[in-house]
């Protein structure tokens, strides 16, 4: 029993081999990513960090199936998806990836409930099921009472929680946050980070792209990119609860 669980914990979710991304320029191609090799296992809690222009956004776009790599292999849950067309990629995004953005990216004209239901619109399920799943996800982030509110009636932290609910509603393989606390004050940042911690404890695989050291320190594995290359990949002792506690106190 113990053994099987440990094997499943080591299950590969993402595997990148020699991923390169370049943008054609007038004189010389610009390489955003150079031969990235990376493996991400299930239930990892990862920060991708680095200065501006280091390629972390490019990497996030590729991990999120929003963009194709120029070359290299990308396995997601064991399937090579490097050469899929846009229709297939959209379906993969819908099924496997939950996005959380810096600017929340909620639709202003839609209620909280409808915002969370949106990813389910692209699936063949009934409206009743969509409402049930979305309500459940909103309950998980503590917004069960705000179903019919509009996003602009909520605080920044609440909006980001709606976005988290929207990411969770499809039960994705990975949750991908792009500077998820970039627009939030420190108190709200602590709240949101606590929520990521909880999600991680519940078994979710979380990847956060950030340039804030505090956020990176929160994660259990920190991948640092400089000029399109991985310069460090440090895993911390995840069992050390004292460490967690110490980090949390940073935001208190």
């Amino acid at each position, binding site marked *: 029993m113990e053994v099987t669980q440990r094997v499943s914990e080591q299950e590969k979710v993402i595997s990148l081999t020699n991923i390169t991304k370049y943008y054609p320029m007038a004189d010389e191609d610009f390489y955003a990513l150079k031969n990235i090799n990376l493996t991400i296992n299930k239930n990892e809690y990862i920060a991708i960090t680095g200065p501006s222009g280091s390629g972390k956004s490019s990497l996030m776009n590729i991990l999120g199936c929003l963009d194709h790599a120029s070359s290299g292999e990308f396995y997601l849950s064991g399937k090579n998806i490097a050469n899929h067309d846009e229709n297939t990629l*959209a379906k993969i995004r819908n099924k496997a990836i939950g996005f959380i953005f810096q600017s929340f990216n909620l639709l202003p004209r839609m209620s909280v409930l409808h915002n969370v239901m949106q990813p389910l619109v692209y699936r063949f399920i009934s409206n009743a099921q969509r409402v049930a799943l979305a309500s459940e996800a909103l309950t998980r982030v503590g917004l069960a009472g705000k179903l019919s509110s509009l996003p602009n009636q909520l605080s920044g932290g609440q909006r980001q929680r709606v976005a988290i609910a929207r990411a969770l509603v499809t039960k994705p393989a990975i949750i991908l946050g792009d500077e998820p606390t970039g627009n939030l004050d420190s108190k709200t940042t602590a709240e949101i980070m606590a929520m990521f911690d909880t999600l991680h404890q519940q078994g979710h695989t979380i990847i956060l792209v950030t340039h804030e050291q505090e956020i990176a320190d929160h994660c259990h594995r920190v991948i640092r990119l400089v000029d399109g290359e991985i310069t460090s990949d440090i895993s911390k002792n995840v069992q050390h609860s004292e460490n967690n506690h110490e980090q949390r106190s940073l935001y208190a």
Partner: protein
Amino acid sequence: MRNFIHASIEGSKAALQSIFSHAMRSALTTLGIIIGVSAVITVVAVMSGLSANISKQLDDLGSDMVTIKAYTSPNQEMLGFFNRMSFDDFLALKGKIKNIDDITVRIPPFSLGSKVQFGRNSSQTQIIGTDSSYKNVINIYPELGRFLSSSDDLRRRRVVFIGSSLVKKLKMPENPIGEFIKLSGDWFRVIGVAETRGSLFGFDQDNYIITPFSTIRSLNGNQVTDNVEVLFRPKASAKLSDIIVQMRQILRQRHKLSEDDGERFEFVTAEKTKEQFTSITTSVTLVASGVVGISLLVGGIGIMNIMLVSVTERTKEIGIAKALGATPQFILMQFLMEALVLSLFGGIIGLILGYGLAALIAVFMPGSSSVIVPLWAIWLSFGFTTTIGVVFGLAPAVKAAKLHPVDALRYE
């Protein structure tokens, strides 16, 4: 297929939401279509109403009635000729042609003096000199009194059968039978009043006086009566073309025409008159429809223009939808549906407006009491607006579907 249906249904939901959340913009976008469709429907409805009215009136006249008139070709006219058909021609036809129910003669309308007097009141009217068979040929029925009888013909009685508007125009008693009216200095007794026919193109069809041909002849001499028209109704079993051939032969013989001489008589059937009217109304409808068709095209371009702006404006929204898993196909359907729904809404509103407008016109325009929107016009407008929605919605929809998710998400 399942994907397509799913995308259509969810796409239309999203489209409806987007249309109603920008109600004002949507209304302005589809205004071109509304105006175009309502214009088409109005024109078609009024013309169809008019056309149906004319057909009905012509049917009332008797659809199988034939009028024979002398015909002068433009060439002859320039040479100073004027062909006539005489009373003797009529008698010759009457005696020789077997396959006809009734045949009658009349002095062409408006060739006699037109002033009529009753007491101190006078009016202008149309005087028709004919015989007692006339009522059988052109379906004219008395409301009061009786029509001309054969003894009126025979005895050259000074009697008249009048149209119903004359009773009002001359301020005659409600039952004018037995009253006397004055026509070019002679007194005539009213023996009957016709049933009301109504007006056609604003032209009063009940303003006429019918008096015996023989009486006119005795009062005016041969000069007026040597140019007549012959009206007849063929037997139901007979073939009209055979009768016409036969009649033409008799007339040409009587007028000593050789084979080289052109046509001197024309045979006008009610069917032919109806065809002429129909061709007029059809061409008016077509021309008008063509003109408004252009306005529909402009309306379609309006939709495309606003949709293109809307795609740019909603780039971020499209990016989010794509990140959340909307396929290009789905986005395409959503925008296509939006264009389609917009133009269909325009079509429906235009249809209702057009019908209302046509009904309003019918109230003010005499002779088109009924408004008819033919089913084909409804299908045509819907077909046209659907086509416009799809054709002009396609470019913006493709633009939206092709947006790259990363670029769209980054768009501010």
